[in-house]
Structures are given as structure tokens and as C-alpha cells.
């Protein structure tokens, strides 16, 4: 038996924080390629601490639904899952290239394939592009459009920004979008009053796409992470890619 565990942050205050995680896990569950699909959270339940013991599968693929490599993927998650043998060098990553490492958790008799975060997988580039397609309602969006990828970043860990630049570079190299993006579009005079998009500012149409992690195609990234780590996923990747396409039934 094989299980997929999607690990995410969650929130004590915001009930919607876990919604995309649940939704993507449900999409993967519906493909039927995993005997079990579970979610676990830093701030909700089941916790990282207790999720593995709820599973019956001997093979477990853990995919962090985080944007970048760093504090959570390298310290918090392996520690809380009791992956005592984890060492970040096992990923041999340049900051965006962590794939997976196979370990034992000290509290359960299972093999744990601990994967790099969803956010640095190459398929994440497709999710960003898909996001542009879904908010514009145009499967061919690109010509005449600029695309800006906005990330958090932190001075405490250079990997945070690296992940954002990695995908922006890949999209730029694809040549699909125009590169001429005005720096300051002045969407609103006062951010506290909010703003409506799509809208037109100085002759430029602007869409604001919201958090990319909510895009249904994220489920594909979770599947590809697990597949890269050795999970048998059959044709689920192709199915999910098709099923989550903008305008798909």
C-alpha cells in the first residue's frame, strides 16, 4: 500500500487557510492511485506529529505544500515527522532542486519518501501559467500580456526568493509572455479601500490572480512530486492536468 501525505501550514485563526490543501488532496484522492491520501498541518489537525500513525500504508510519500525550501521543509517538517536521519544534504539541492529522500520515521514502521516542496517543482511553472489562463479565461494567453510573479521572500533565507525567480525565469525563457511590465500601475489610491480587477489603468488591462496555491493544477504538482520519488501514479498526472484545465467540465 502507498499513501500520499500533503503537509501544509494551516492556521489557528483563518478557517480558509487549509481549504486549498484539502481541495488538492481530494483531487489526488479521486484519481485512486494512492491507497490513502492524508493532509497534516503545522497549525491544524492531524498535526505533522501524528499523521503518520493514522496511515495503514507501508510506503508514504510526504509532499510539503510550501513554496520554497527553507525553515519548514528543512527543519520543522522532518523534525515533527520524526525523520531523525534527515540531513538537508540528502536533497543535494541548489536551493530549488530538492527532489526526495527516503527515510524511516522513528515512531512508525514505515518507509517515508520525503519530497521537496511543491513550490520548486518544474510543474509549478505550469501552475503559474495556468493561473494566468484561468483568471483571463484564455487558454492561449501570452501575446500582448506581461506576467508578474509576486512572492514573499525573506532576508533570513535566500531560497525563499530563489523559488520565485526560478519560475519567473522559466516562464521568461519560454517566450510566451511579453516582458514589458510597467513598474507602478496604481491600482488603488488607498489599499485599505480595496480594488477591483480586472481593471484598466492608463490603457493597460490588469488582472490580479490571487494566491497561486489555490489553482486546481497544484494537485498535479503533488502527484508529480510523489511520482518523481517513486510512487506508482499510473496516468493520474495526465488525468489531473486535463481535469483541472480552465473551462474543463
Amino acid at each position, binding site marked *: 500500500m502507498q499513501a500520499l501525505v500533503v503537509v501544509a501550514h494551516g*492556521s*489557528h*485563526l*483563518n*478557517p480558509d487557510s487549509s481549504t486549498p490543501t*484539502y481541495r488538492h488532496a*481530494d483531487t489526488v484522492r479521486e484519481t485512486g492511485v494512492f491507497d490513502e491520501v492524508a493532509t497534516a498541518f*503545522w*497549525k*491544524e*489537525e*492531524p*498535526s505533522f*506529529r*501524528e*499523521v503518520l*500513525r*493514522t496511515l*495503514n500504508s507501508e510506503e508514504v510519500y510526504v509532499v510539503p505544500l510550501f513554496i520554497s525550501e527553507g*525553515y519548514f521543509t528543512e*527543519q*520543522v517538517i522532518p*523534525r515533527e515527522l520524526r525523520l531523525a536521519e534527515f540531513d538537508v544534504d540528502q536533497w543535494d539541492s541548489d536551493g530549488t532542486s530538492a527532489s526526495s529522500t527516503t527515510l524511516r520515521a522513528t*515512531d512508525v514502521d514505515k518507509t517515508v519518501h520525503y519530497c521537496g516542496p511543491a513550490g520548486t517543482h518544474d510543474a509549478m511553472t505550469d501552475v503559474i501559467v495556468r493561473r494566468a489562463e484561468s483568471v483571463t479565461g484564455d487558454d492561449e494567453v501570452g501575446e500582448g500580456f506581461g506576467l508578474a510573479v509576486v512572492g514573499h521572500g525573506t532576508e533570513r533565507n535566500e531560497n525563499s526568493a530563489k523559488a520565485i525567480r526560478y519560475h519567473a525565469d522559466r516562464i521568461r525563457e519560454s517566450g510566451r509572455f511579453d516582458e514589458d511590465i510597467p513598474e507602478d500601475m496604481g491600482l488603488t489610491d488607498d489599499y485599505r479601500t480595496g480594488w477591483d480587477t480586472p481593471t484598466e489603468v492608463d490603457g493597460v488591462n490588469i488582472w490580479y490572480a490571487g494566491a497561486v496555491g489555490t489553482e486546481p493544477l497544484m494537485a498535479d504538482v503533488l502527484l508529480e512530486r510523489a511520482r518523481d520519488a517513486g510512487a506508482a501514479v499510473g496516468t493520474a498526472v495526465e488525468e489531473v492536468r486535463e481535469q483541472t484545465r480552465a473551462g474543463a467540465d
Partner: protein
Amino acid sequence: MTAPAVARLSSAVREEPVACDGLHAEYDDNYQFSIPDADIEESGLSEDEFETLAADHEPYVTNWAYWNEDRADADDAFLRWLEAADETTVPERYESLRAGMSRSWGELRIEVRLDDGARRYEIRHSDDVGEDGLEPHDEPLDARSLVTYDDDGRYRPLKTAPSLPHGWVFADQTGRECVETVEYIYPATVANWYLERQGELDIDHWEPTIGRQSGIYGVVQTWNRGDSHEHVNWVAEACCDDSQCVKRREWQYDEETDLDVPGGDGEFPCREPCSLVIAAARKWTRLEGEQEQAYEFTLTPSEKEQVEEIIDAVADGRADEIREADTSDPANRYRARYLRAKRFDEDGNLSGTATESSE
């Protein structure tokens, strides 16, 4: 129902001996069948004789067939506990199961009953026992969104908070679906309860739990002071009391030092301080870093008691229940507003006493 179960039994005993809840059967050139509780012990049986005898004791056979299904050990243990399988004989149990047997699990009431010889499970809020018109659900996954908010629409960050919403029922589930539903409502409780029954629950006490915290939670380690664990008593009293969480707190200060407040009567254990406790402890660590200082307030005796009652009402989650016109309740809104009007100065200081001394 019997015939397939009997056929499965006779085929199973050819592979290996069967022993389940008082039924023993095996095969060695011919069949043996015994139920000591019913004074039955037959050997040298042909297949037909074996199957006839087995069919005469249908409950034992269907009982074996059910517990022989492929399920995780923890799930089986939980389902057997629901029907007190280790405490009753099969005929007694089947009699009870026809009427339905119930257990409480946190705020849940779970009933198992025999329906056409098959076990079916029903889950609802224990307050909703006997209620009609509950919203029916079949899919275990439905439970996940059902329990996100309490009856007043407030987010429940702690799944085991005693604020489970009412008004729904999972009326007709298999054993596996039942466990799955329970796990969406109270995650990991079955697994930890089972480990505890096996004597294998891995408890992480306060000391090692805060010891492994990092990042913004690392500061909680600085809250421990020498041999004193009084502050952790207060944490447990604040967060882990039965009025706040239906788990039974098994973690203590450390391996040697028990806390002095009750762990609660919950059916399933809490094996380490949860993320809510750690997040709250981070706040208290900062607040408790302040030095105490003496303030002088002028209050009437009733006003002093009123302040205490207001704190009690908030701490016990009672503030919303106090009726608007019930001015006999010291925590009544009008009473609180009157006290504020009388005793606060324009800067919101009680009795006009500044928080920071001006010296």
C-alpha cells in the same frame, strides 16, 4: 447471509485453524468445531457435517466473518470496543446489537447495530441522540467540513474542543467508514487510543516538547525557571481542562514531575502539548517576562466582585449567554458598561491609575 459465511469458514479452516470470540475450528483430514461456552465440541466431521453445525451457530460464524475482514489493527480494536466484544459472549452481544449498542467518543455518540445480520454504524453528536430531522450524510469526507465551525459559526481551530456542531447524522456506515468519519472529526484519536491500550503510547511531556521548538516558538524554553512548574499547571488548567478539550491530557511537566491539575476524563489521550498550547505559551512567555508591580485601585466591594465575575464569565465562555436585561449578573453588559463609565478615565485606565508608573 449465513451460507456465504459458513462456506468461507470451511474454506478458511482448511488453510489454518480459526479462533474468534469463543469459536474454534480446524481441519486435519476432517473438521473440528467447538464452542466451549455452548458446550459444543465436535471432531471427525465431514464438510457437510461441519457446515451444518456451523449454520446452527450462525452468530459465531458471521461474527468471525466480520472480524476476519481486512482492517487495520487499530480500527478493529476501536470497532470491537464499540460493541464491548471482549466483555460479552457472541449470543449476548448479538442480542444487544439487534437493539443497538452505543459508546461515547468525545462529543460523539456512536451506535452499532445488526441490520440483516450485518453491522451498521451510526454517528451523531451525543446531544442529538433521539433527535429527528438531522441532516443525513453518507460520505466520511463530509465530516471534515461539518466540524470546521461551531453552532455559532465560529472557526474551531482545535478539533477536540467541546464545541462540536449539532444537527447532522451519519446513519448507515460500514465499520471502515465509521472509523474514517471519526478520524475526520477527531484526527489521530483512534491511533493514539489504540497505542495507549497496547501500552505503547509515546508521550512527549512539556519539557521535551518546548525543548524541540525553534523559530518564533523557541522563546518558550526561556519560560521554565528552575524546579518550578507552577506556570505549566496554569497552562494546563487554562487550555487542557475538560471544558476546553475532550482529550485526556497524559503529558506532564517531565518524566519525573506530574502536573498538579487534573488531566480530564476523556476517552482518548493527548500525548503532547498541541500547537494551540505552544502558541499560547509563546504569548505567556512574553507577558510573564514583565515585573509585577503594585497598583492601587478604589472599588466598592461589589465592584471588586464584579471584576472577578467578568473574568470568570469570559474564561468560562459564558459572556454570550448573559441576558441583556439581567442586571443581577455582575458580568451583564450594562453592568460592565456602567463600571467602565464610572471607573475608567478618558485614557481607559481603571480608577485613573496609569499602567506605567510616571516615576
